[in-house]
């Protein structure tokens, strides 16, 4: 009995040998196929479906499934409310994200040392992340209530005069109120990731820097930051995406008001899609947001890859 040659040559003499894939190599692809299929079904199908709906004309009364061209995209480009909502969203990202990062980093540094009761403090700090965002928003609405809320009361004690700050109405206070609630809830998330990253920084490098007399800032910039950079980048990316679809806290606190002053993309999409039933228009909006986010994420991931 002869063993079959796994790489048989062509029958023709002198012909170039044809390299064949070893038997069983394709098996690994078959193994991951179900998972890929599920991901495609869950992830890609809604995107394709959204794209299809965006070129139809489905409204509260019209179920027009025929091809309608790119009219909704054209309308969207001229929709000032959409661009304002996008700008409001970017403001939230631009302000809340650095705050969460810096506070999370500061807290992570603080908890690097083995303080007494550290596990209890860490558990307490993480609690806000476990709260549903809409519940967090409702809680902050109560906290900031001008009549019964403790925050006005505390400010009143500090200033010595009765305070009736209208956090959900006053244009000077609505953004701080939302950002306060958002930072309160999600800083612990940053803290957890950065805390884990900081614990993995090479201690020998830290000691070497210390022996060389490097300042804290220099050590952080040249030793710590490069080591935790991939984690920082991913944490920032996750939170940026979260903030980009900010809805719950804003809805609970201001419903996008006063007027549309704090209306985010998610809120505008909700209003258009589920209150006014502009289904196709909302699909166009969603698809445009998907494109913006996909491009942004691709660029960021590529940048992270390059930096590594």
């Amino acid at each position, binding site marked *: 009995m002869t063993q079959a040659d796994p790489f048989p040559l062509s029958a023709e003499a002198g012909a170039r040998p044809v390299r064949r894939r070893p038997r069983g190599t394709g098996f690994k692809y078959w193994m991951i196929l179900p998972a890929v299929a599920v991901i495609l079904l869950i992830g890609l199908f809604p995107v394709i479906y959204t794209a299809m709906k965006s070129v139809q004309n489905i409204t*509260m009364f019209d179920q027009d499934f025929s091809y309608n061209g790119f009219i909704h995209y054209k309308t969207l480009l001229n929709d000032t409310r959409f661009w304002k909502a996008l700008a409001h969203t970017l403001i939230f990202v631009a302000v809340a994200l650095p705050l969460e990062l810096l506070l999370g980093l500061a807290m992570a540094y603080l908890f690097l040392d083995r303080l007494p009761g550290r596990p209890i403090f860490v558990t307490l700090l993480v609690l806000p992340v476990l709260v549903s965002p809409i519940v967090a928003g409702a809680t902050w609405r109560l906290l900031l209530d001008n*009549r019964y809320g403790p925050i006005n009361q505390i400010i009143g004690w500090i200033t010595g005069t009765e305070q009736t700050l*209208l956090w959900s*109405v006053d244009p000077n206070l609505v953004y701080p109120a939302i950002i306060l609630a958002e930072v309160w809830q999600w800083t612990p998330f940053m803290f957890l990731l950065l805390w884990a990253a900081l614990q993995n920084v090479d201690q020998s490098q830290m000691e070497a820097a210390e022996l060389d007399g490097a300042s804290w800032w220099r050590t952080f910039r040249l030793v710590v930051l490069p080591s935790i950079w991939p984690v920082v980048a991913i944490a920032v990316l996750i939170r940026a995406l979260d903030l980009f679809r900010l809805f719950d806290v804003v809805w609970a606190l201001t419903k996008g008001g006063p*007027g*549309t*002053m704090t209306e985010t993309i998610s809120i505008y999409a909700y209003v258009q899609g*589920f209150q006014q*039933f502009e289904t196709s228009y909302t699909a166009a909006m969603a698809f445009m947001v998907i494109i913006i986010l996909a491009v942004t994420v691709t660029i960021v991931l590529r940048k992270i890859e390059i930096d590594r």
Partner: protein
Amino acid sequence: MDRRQFVIGSGALAGLSAVGWPRLANAQAAQKAVEAAQAFRGSEVTVVWEAGLQALDPLNFSGPMWEEATGIKVNIVEVPTSEMFTKILQEHRAGTGAYDALNVVPAWMPDLVRAGALEPLDSYVEKYGYGPELETIAPVYRDNQMKVDGTIYGLPDDGDVLVLYYRTDVLNDPALQSEFKAEMGYDLPVPPTTWKEFDDVGAFITEWSDGKIYGAGFMRESTYGALMFQERFRNEGGRFFDPDTMKATINSDVGVKVFTDWVAENKWMPKGVQTWGFVENLAAFLAGDTAMTVSWPPYGRWAAGYGTDTEALSWVPKSTIGGKVGYAMTPGGHPQLALGFALGVSSSSRNKEAAYLFCQWLNSAEISLQRVQLPYALRDPFRDSHFASEEYKSRWPEAPQYLQALQDGAVNGLLDLSIIQTDRYEEVIRQSVTRLWSGEDPKAILDDAAAQWDSLTERIGLEKQKAAYASWASNPAAYPA
């Protein structure tokens, strides 16, 4: 109501059914519904109901009664008012048949009918002989909250109307009255009948009492503010649209005056009134912090302490003003019939007949009288027989005056705006209210709102909307005569 009270009440009602109904002409519709529903014994009907207190009616009272009488189980899906329209329409689009009966705000009915979500009810009304009892619903609800284009789609089931509540002890205080006359040059009106009088009295009380009691408090939060704007704007002579061109006219001088007056009023109202909703305003009034307010009928019942010792109303602050509250129509004399509910049947229901019969039974003269007297359920009198009920009048000493104020409101009330996609227009007003509280100029806000309305009209179709508005505006209850 505890279980024991419920069982006794159900037994009494069952007894009344067996003995009294054949002799009571106005009980026939309920009896017919129960008899016809026997054919559906063992089935279930799922009903969309406003979340919270409203839902306690079918959960604690009418639902169990119906199940006991017919063997049909009632499932209640509680939905916040602000999401009811969305949920109903989404379910209709999905065609799941998840909802059988619906509570719908009458102003939404035309939109839901256009979307095909509501079942026409004429044939059921005819089949189960409900016509005569439908006729005894107070005319303003019967004529305006039941039909769309001549077809019945809802059974008016809630006499919502805004009422002016005022503290009789404060406004009738001789010292206040004499000082008011000395300063203002006319007798203090009890109650104020115009917004000018209301503002004079309210501002004077705040100043006179040195802030110990405010002249008035209001629900200024945008959801309520938008309804209050509709009412006051029309009472002051405003019109929503030019009927010829369909151009929005909410930015007229009247609209600007209403917004400007609101900002001025806030100065003599409690601090932070801009954020007040139903509960905040109620708490302030029941605590005796404000001398006047405008709200829906439950305020009057709770201010009198009616049923507030029940568990369901344990959250209502204890009234400190029982016996000291007067009821009247809102200034201008044409209160808004704000919101309200009608009972309808979902077009995608798989149990339409049973769903309709449950609605007929609920809405019947006999059962509805029991329901509007439930202290916690927020259903307000909507039949002539409710306003005239001796039983209801005996509920608290001032109940006769209360019922009279509600009936006056029903006779003189103004309908909510109801055109194609009304909510989109109302959303603009809601946003305008929030902009007003943020300090923007009233004229600029309303100019922008009018532009948005015009753009909406353009999008929906000018001629279509013009016809819808003409139909609505031709109703005597659309604008004050």
